[in-house]
């Protein structure tokens, strides 16, 4: 028993103590001085779940909800809990085959993990929901969860109301300080976009504890850090949804737009853009496919032509020219101008005038005499008080701009175009530094370089109706719970056209415009017992077809307001590539006006007119060709796929060992054997002429074949 080793007992204790001290040192380091572990722990375990409030509802003028929320159901699956599932019967209910089922489950596990709930089938249709809801107890791991989706009860005004989509990275980059994150929805077009901040409400946050597999375990700290979601504010618009629906009906199978404004308030009563689409197609389960269809449609149904397309206003612009001419005194009501078939002032024989004769102001408006207004315009630019044409143009533009032309009006919709009231500099390239009035003469009749949006044109009508003042055209009258962002402030300011214009001038123009409907160009659009003032417009236009500029059918324009005394509606209509203004746009406008003023169309004749114009088809030839091309391409693709399928079948019938893995995605159920066109209005498409452009098609065909491989 070596006694000398006794001291080593102490030594052992010291060793123990030292090691424990080292451990405690590391604990101090970890627990007291390292903040990062606490952060890491929170990142690990706390799941911040954003609670989405309901978006605001959009009401029309009469308090009818035109865009609201509804509950839709998603079929949600937790892959780990689907053991012992009767796959075949579920697939039967969902109309998919088991291969598709397995593929989807595999994808979901890959994307979202094995134990987390993932959406198996989003946005079930009502019948699908009913079918599944009865049977859901049979399918372990599957459940139905609610989600709020947008719905358009009237299926109307898609171009105005807009739609919401999931935000993409570009959106996140632009709106980076607004708290969006991947998976959020935001308004992409229309009111949904413009009033995004108002409609979206305030998102709430709930904190949950989650486990290592991201399953939620319960609220964090009993929810003391949670914030509640605040629902989006409802907004009330000046739209009249019935008027909108009538407009959309009348514009069936046409390309163009209708904008009607209440001149007293500037509220937009309807804004039709044709062709339009059923906005509900962009909310359902197939919304992505539908959106793709719409985006690829050559008719560009997603455009809002009332606001984002610039048109040469044609003869409707003569009202403005006339007002300026009378104000400046270059003509008076008694000035007579002769129309020998063309305008004589420039010696070019242009512009032509159709009704030969002698015209004074009222008649010139009534019959839309090109000669007269060319004279007015030429005289305006030749006034002695101006040293040059340039300054005369500038003076003219001061007037024109005061009518809301040549700049954005500030309508509460995104992507508004400015239009163009040309300045001298717009012509330098063409005519050199020294301009002559004759260079610009076609502006007199609203052609040439003058371009307006349809809203601007409707606004001009409102100004004439009001004899010199207007409110900025807008859709939203009020926001429930107050307009905190001041979005509506600009719509409450009364704006005035140039103050030099006396009321008498407006009266004279109104006389002329009344004459247009009473006995002038638009006599057939007269509404019994309503005094409507209007102005037709027929715009020549050209389009590039196969590289050659070709004259297209005229654009049909009509601008009007009614009744003359105490006007309640100002309207502008365009129907592209249809006919003269008096033949298409004017009758459509008159029907809208009547509907608005009387709440219905009176008289058999007028009702027949509704049907007549609804059934007319005015598709621009360029679009017809594009559609025909698209259709024949699709047909080719279908044939190709059918062929491939047949080949595949043969192969599998022959019992080759090779699993056709490459072909698997093209399952027979998915192949659009008869793809349903998702455009709401089934347009009688022009006859398909697959043999007209064989060369072009084979080219594309070859391209397609390559990409199909």
């Amino acid at each position, binding site marked *: *028993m*070596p006694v000398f*080793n*006794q001291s*080593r*007992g102490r*030594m*052992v*204790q010291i*060793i*123990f*103590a030292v*090691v*424990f001290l*080292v*451990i*405690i040192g*590391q*604990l*101090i380091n*970890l*627990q*007291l001085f*390292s903040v*990062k*572990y*606490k952060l*890491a*722990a*929170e990142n*690990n*375990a*706390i799941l911040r779940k954003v609670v989405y409030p309901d978006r605001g509802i959009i009401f029309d003028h009469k308090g009818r909800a035109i865009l609201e929320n509804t509950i839709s159901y998603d079929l949600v699956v937790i892959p780990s809990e689907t053991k012992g599932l009767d796959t075949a019967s579920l697939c039967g209910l969902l109309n998919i085959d088991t291969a598709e089922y397995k593929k989807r489950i595999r994808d979901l596990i890959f994307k979202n993990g094995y134990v987390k709930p993932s959406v198996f089938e989003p946005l079930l249709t009502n019948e699908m929901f009913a079918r599944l809801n009865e049977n859901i107890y049979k399918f372990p791991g599957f459940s139905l969860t609610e989600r709020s989706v947008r719905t358009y009860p009237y299926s109307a005004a898609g171009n105005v109301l807009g739609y919401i989509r999931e935000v993409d990275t570009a959106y996140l980059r632009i709106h980076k300080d607004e708290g969006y994150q991947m998976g959020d929805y935001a308004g992409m077009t229309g009111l949904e976009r413009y009033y995004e901040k108002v409609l979206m409400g305030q998102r709430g946050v709930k904190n949950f*504890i*989650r*486990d*290592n597999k991201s399953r939620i*375990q*319960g609220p*964090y700290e009993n929810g003391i850090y949670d914030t509640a979601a605040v629902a989006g504010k409802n907004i009330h618009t000046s739209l009249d949804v019935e008027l909108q629906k009538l407009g959309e009906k009348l514009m069936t199978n046409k390309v163009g737009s209708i904008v009607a404004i209440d001149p007293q308030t500037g509220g937009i009563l309807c804004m039709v853009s044709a062709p339009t689409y059923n906005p509900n197609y962009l909310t359902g389960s197939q919304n992505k496919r539908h959106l793709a269809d719409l985006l690829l449609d050559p008719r560009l149904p997603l455009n809002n032509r009332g606001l984002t397309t610039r048109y040469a206003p044609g003869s409707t612009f003569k009202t403005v020219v006339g007002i300026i001419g009378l104000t400046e005194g270059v003509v008076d009501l008694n000035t007579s101008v002769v129309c020998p078939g063309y305008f004589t002032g420039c010696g070019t024989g242009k512009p032509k005038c159709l009704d030969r004769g002698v015209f004074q102001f009222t008649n010139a408006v009534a019959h839309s005499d090109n000669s007269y207004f060319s004279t007015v315009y030429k005289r305006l630019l030749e006034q002695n008080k101006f040293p040059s044409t340039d300054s005369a143009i500038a003076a003219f533009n001061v007037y024109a701009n005061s009518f809301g032309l040549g700049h954005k009006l500030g309508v509460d919709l995104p992507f508004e175009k400015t239009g163009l009231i040309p300045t001298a500099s717009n012509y330098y390239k063409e005519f050199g530094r020294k301009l002559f009035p004759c260079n610009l003469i076609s502006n007199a009749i609203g052609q040439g370089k003058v371009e307006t949006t349809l809203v601007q044109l409707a606004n001009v009508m409102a100004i004439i109706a009001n004899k010199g003042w207007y409110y900025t055209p807008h859709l939203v009258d009020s926001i429930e719970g107050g307009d905190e962002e001041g979005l509506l402030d600009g719509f409450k300011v009364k704006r005035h056209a140039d103050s030099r214009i006396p009321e008498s001038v407006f009266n004279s123009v109104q006389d002329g415009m009344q004459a247009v409907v009473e006995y002038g160009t638009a006599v057939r659009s007269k509404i019994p017992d309503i005094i409507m003032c209007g102005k037709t417009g027929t715009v020549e236009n050209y389009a590039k077809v196969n590289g050659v500029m070709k004259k297209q059918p005229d654009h049909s324009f009509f601008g009007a307001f009614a009744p003359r005394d105490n006007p309640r509606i100002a309207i502008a209509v365009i129907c592209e590539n249809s006919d003269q203004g008096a033949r298409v746009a004017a009758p459509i406008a008159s029907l809208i006006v009547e509907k608005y003023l009387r709440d219905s169309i009176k008289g058999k004749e007028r009702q027949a007119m509704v049907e007549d114009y609804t059934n007319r088809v005015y598709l621009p030839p360029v679009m017809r060709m594009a559609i025909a091309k698209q259709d024949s391409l699709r047909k080719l693709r279908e044939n190709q796929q059918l062929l491939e399928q047949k080949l595949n079948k043969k192969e599998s019938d022959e019992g080759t060992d090779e699993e056709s893995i490459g072909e698997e995605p093209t399952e027979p159920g998915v192949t659009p054997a008869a793809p349903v066109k998702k455009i709401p209005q089934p347009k009688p498409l022009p006859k398909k002429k697959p043999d007209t452009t064989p060369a072009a098609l084979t080219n594309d065909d070859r391209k397609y074949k390559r990409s199909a491989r």
Partner: protein
Amino acid sequence: MNNRNNTISQGVDWTIIWLYAILVGIGILCIFMVEYRIDSNWLQSFLGGKTNYSKQLIFAGFCAIVATFILLTDSKLFTAFANLLYALGILLMLATFVLGKNINGSKSWIPIGGGFNLQPAELCKIFTALALAKFISRQETDFSKLRSQLIAGLIAAAPALLSILQHELGLALVYSAFLIAMYREGLPAQILIVGSSFVILVVATLILDPDVLAISLTVIAALILLVLRKQAKKSKRLMMLVVGIWLLCVGTQRFVVPYIFNNVLECYQSTRIYSMVGKEYDCSQNKKSERKVGEKAARKPDDYNVRQSKIAIGSGGLTGRGFLKGTQTRGKYVPEQHTDFIFTSLGEAFGFIGCFVFLCIYLLLLFRIVKIAERQRSTFSRVYAYSVASILFFHIAVNVSMTIGLFPIVGIPLPLVSYGGSSLLTFTILIFVLLRLDADRQMVLR
């Protein structure tokens, strides 16, 4: 002295029993924290026997019975059966190679029916402690002799070697704890110093760039020679010694350590050790993994365990998140939290203060055992007591160190606290045999 008083409390050290009970209690609470779910009725599940904490409670009850039996036995029994038990232990360990059941990749378990498995390596700790005590306490053993030291070392090394063959590195490491006991009995301190120096050198090799380490070692050697230049001039031997040590160090760092990682250790062990110091280990260098190319490729482990474990402990802060409020524990972020990483639940729930108190309890237990060891009259009891203290110490130090990132992850449970019947039973037997021996400290046992 066969007419011993039969009241079992006679001479028993109650401090140890209290500390033992407290630790087992803490253990059950910790397991409860890990397994607890808000929606479950905890009282019911405590009694139900389905959950781990209720199982641990049952184990504890069983251990109490075993402990009572041990206290009722005669001390001489242990001396008498020490060698026999040791032989049995070795035999059992050999048997695992035949009967072994693969659990978590280590073939060290023998199924004994009823769903229970026996890990002979665990039991062997007790037997080895007894055998070592028996050997050193023999009258003819002179522990100052190298021969005796080698035999003692062999007694400890044999089960360790078998454990390595069973891929249980952690258990094998535990046997190095006996060095401390041997040190107390006269093992030269140099062995401990050299041993720990070697460990430090290995760690330094891992952390530092090989060239930097070589240069710094050279600089240190040069500095020593510079300081001792007068003595070195006089004695060639001193110079040779310094140069020799330098060569040894550099050699170790250059060749021995890479050899150990590439040829001795398994790929996953090397990876774990590297990941602990924040480095990646290239498994393609590992000869062992090369040999097993045909087998299932080892899943590449990363430092997930250590990271989560450090996060859980670190998030506890000074006072902790409170009982049952730890988010990491509730979220099951730390793998194996009820067994090897039980310390993390404590660290998260009770913070630094809780950890400090907990470690103090352990330290108190260790010091108490050392105190008991020193008051023994018989060498057998003393060596055994030191063995118990060393084993406990080694377990605690390694387990806690690995949860806080000071040591690579090896599967070593926290004594008395970690979930597991085998482990609890082993430590119970270890401690209560000690108490039995201590109760008879007046006797001289051989």
